[in-house]
């Protein structure tokens, strides 16, 4: 030991389990780099949607090009190419988007079906998410609280519906739907997505329900509420985090689903995913319009997640507990 004793350092020494400052910095840089790399395709799609169809397929690719709304206009309209004489004979353009169309040497023929397909996606996506959550919440509550005969087998059965890729049953589902008249209907697609999502929602929500102490409902029942009222007033608000998380997962699946939508819907109930790739321009695919469709298609899940983020970030803490 050296003498005299050296003074104690005043800067706190990090504990053995605390990350060192440089470790933190490296971790931060890695996360940022990963985020940037993940965002590149997304950025490319958004950039492409604001280009002219020519710039969108130019070679070598242009990173920065004159911004243009032609992609969006083409997405929402159908057009016909006309001769210069016909163009001259046409009445003057009524709006900015008609001018944009005429600049391409075409006349607007009418609206495209994109808007309908988008609305279909919203109906089927949110409808099936809503159903999967309502049914899942009640099933999860029952499985979490009551003595159900063969509960574990039942839970395993519910999970096992997810073990096979849904597309494996595409043909039987198609034949069945044709038989009962569910082909190309909102109900058909909504039911299918609900069923696929239900196992996920039951399992996720059961975990959340198990975390909610029974004492809350019991207190509510003693306070004069029926079990169902206690479920609505006490359990549901407690399960908000779980419901938010689960509904985002369900929506993402239903919103992005492509294969069944392609197989089971066509003229009436077709959703956006099978529609977007069919946007055809002149002499090939209209990549700008397709990118515009994709960009718009990304928005709802994003908005939904942002709206629910309060519940997601709150985490699973049940603060009024003293242990």
């Amino acid at each position, binding site marked *: 030991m050296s003498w005299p004793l050296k003074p104690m350092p005043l800067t706190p020494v990090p504990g053995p389990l605390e990350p060192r400052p440089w470790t933190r910095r490296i971790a931060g840089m890695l996360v940022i780099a990963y985020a940037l790399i993940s965002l590149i395709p997304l950025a490319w799609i958004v950039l492409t949607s604001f280009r002219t169809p020519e710039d969108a397929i130019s070679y070598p690719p242009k990173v920065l090009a004159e911004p243009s709304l032609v992609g969006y206009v083409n997405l929402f309209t159908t057009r016909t190419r006309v001769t210069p004489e016909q163009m001259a004979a046409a009445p003057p353009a009524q709006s900015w988007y008609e001018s944009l169309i005429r600049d391409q040497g075409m006349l607007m023929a009418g609206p495209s079906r994109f808007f309908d397909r988008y609305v279909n996606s919203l109906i089927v996506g949110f409808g099936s998410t809503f159903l999967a959550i309502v049914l899942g919440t009640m099933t999860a509550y029952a499985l979490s609280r009551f003595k159900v005969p063969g509960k574990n087998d039942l839970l395993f059965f519910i999970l096992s519906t997810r073990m096979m890729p849904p597309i494996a049953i595409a043909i039987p589902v198609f034949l069945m739907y044709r038989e009962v008249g569910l082909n190309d209907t909102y109900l058909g697609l909504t039911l299918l997505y609900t069923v696929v999502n239900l196992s996920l929602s039951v399992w996720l929500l059961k975990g959340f329900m198990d975390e909610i*102490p029974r*004492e*809350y409902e*019991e*207190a*509510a*029942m*003693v*306070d*004069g*509420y*029926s079990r169902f*009222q206690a479920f609505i007033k*006490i359990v549901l*608000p*407690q399960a*908000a985090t779980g419901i938010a998380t689960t509904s985002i997962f369900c929506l993402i699946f239903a919103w992005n689903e492509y294969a069944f939508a392609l197989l089971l819907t066509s003229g009436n109930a077709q959703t956006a995913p099978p529609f977007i790739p069919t946007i055809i321009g002149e002499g090939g695919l209209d990549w700008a319009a397709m990118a515009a469709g994709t960009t718009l298609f990304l928005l709802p899940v994003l908005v939904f997640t942002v709206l629910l983020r309060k519940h997601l970030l709150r985490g699973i803490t*049940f*603060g*009024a*507990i*003293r*242990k």
Partner: protein
Amino acid sequence: MASLTFAAVTKSFGPVRAVDGLDLSIRDGEFFVILGPSGAGKTTSLRLLAGLETPDHGKIFMDGRDVTGLHPAARDVAFVFQQYSLYPHLSVRDNIAFPLRAPGRRLPETEIAVKVAEVAALLHIESKLDSKATTLSGGEMQRVAIGRALVRQPQLFLMDEPLSSLDAKLREELRVELKRLQRRLGTTLVYVTHDQVEALTLADRIAVMEAGRIGQIGTPEHIYDRPETLAVARRLGSPPMNILTPAVLGPDSSHVPAATAHVAIRPEDVRVSVDALTPAGQVFRAIEHSLVTRILVAEQGDLEVRALVRADQPILPGQDIGITFPLAHCQFFDRSGNRISA
């Protein structure tokens, strides 16, 4: 206000008989404490009263009415839980108002506001009414939980160790407050605890529960002075009662009743003589003695004795002392632990 009766109530969870043939009557307006170790069936008894459990056998009566199969909401009882006491997503005000907004009751909001304010004043939580339940301290939470029970003026209060999660000082404070409240309201209150101090200070009558059965029912004094079994004797008193063999009585041992296997005596009744030269009674060796708690622990072979000793100087560890056990204060129990009436 209500009187309560358990008639041969049994409740099992799988192979465990939580409550085993319980017969019990609780009088109207009584502060009734069920005391017992964990797993004795105290909480189950309370939950049976609240309707949160249904008995396997037997019946439960409130004011002579059979409530055995009645839903909790229909019983008009208030329950204060040991923990998880408040609805975390509601404010303190909404927590207290929650029972008043129940479908069967549904008071007008103005009346609710008046009642909530009254209860808050009573429990000194006025300043907390608009806080979220999760931001309160443990003591405040339990006050609010008690407030939620008080606000409805129910037939019956049920409290399941409401103070056990609080620190000692707060526990005592709330304990006194609880007793005062119950005196004022005159409502029947059934209180479950494993804390004998709470039981002895709060109760009009105590039921000592052990393994799903009741060991003894009586006033705190009665149970303290005349325990019917060794188990009850051990449960009450701090430091606990000394359980000894007849031999320690020395020459007096000839006076003990026949069949006596155990002699029990409270630490406060044990006489200690520190005179080292001629120690009176049995010779024990001191192990520890505190001038603050005044508790002396001494041993003789396998026997350990606790005594309350008021002294100016501590008895030193290892010192030999004389101990006598006055026959008048001794209680006698047979081999199976039952009291032998003397």
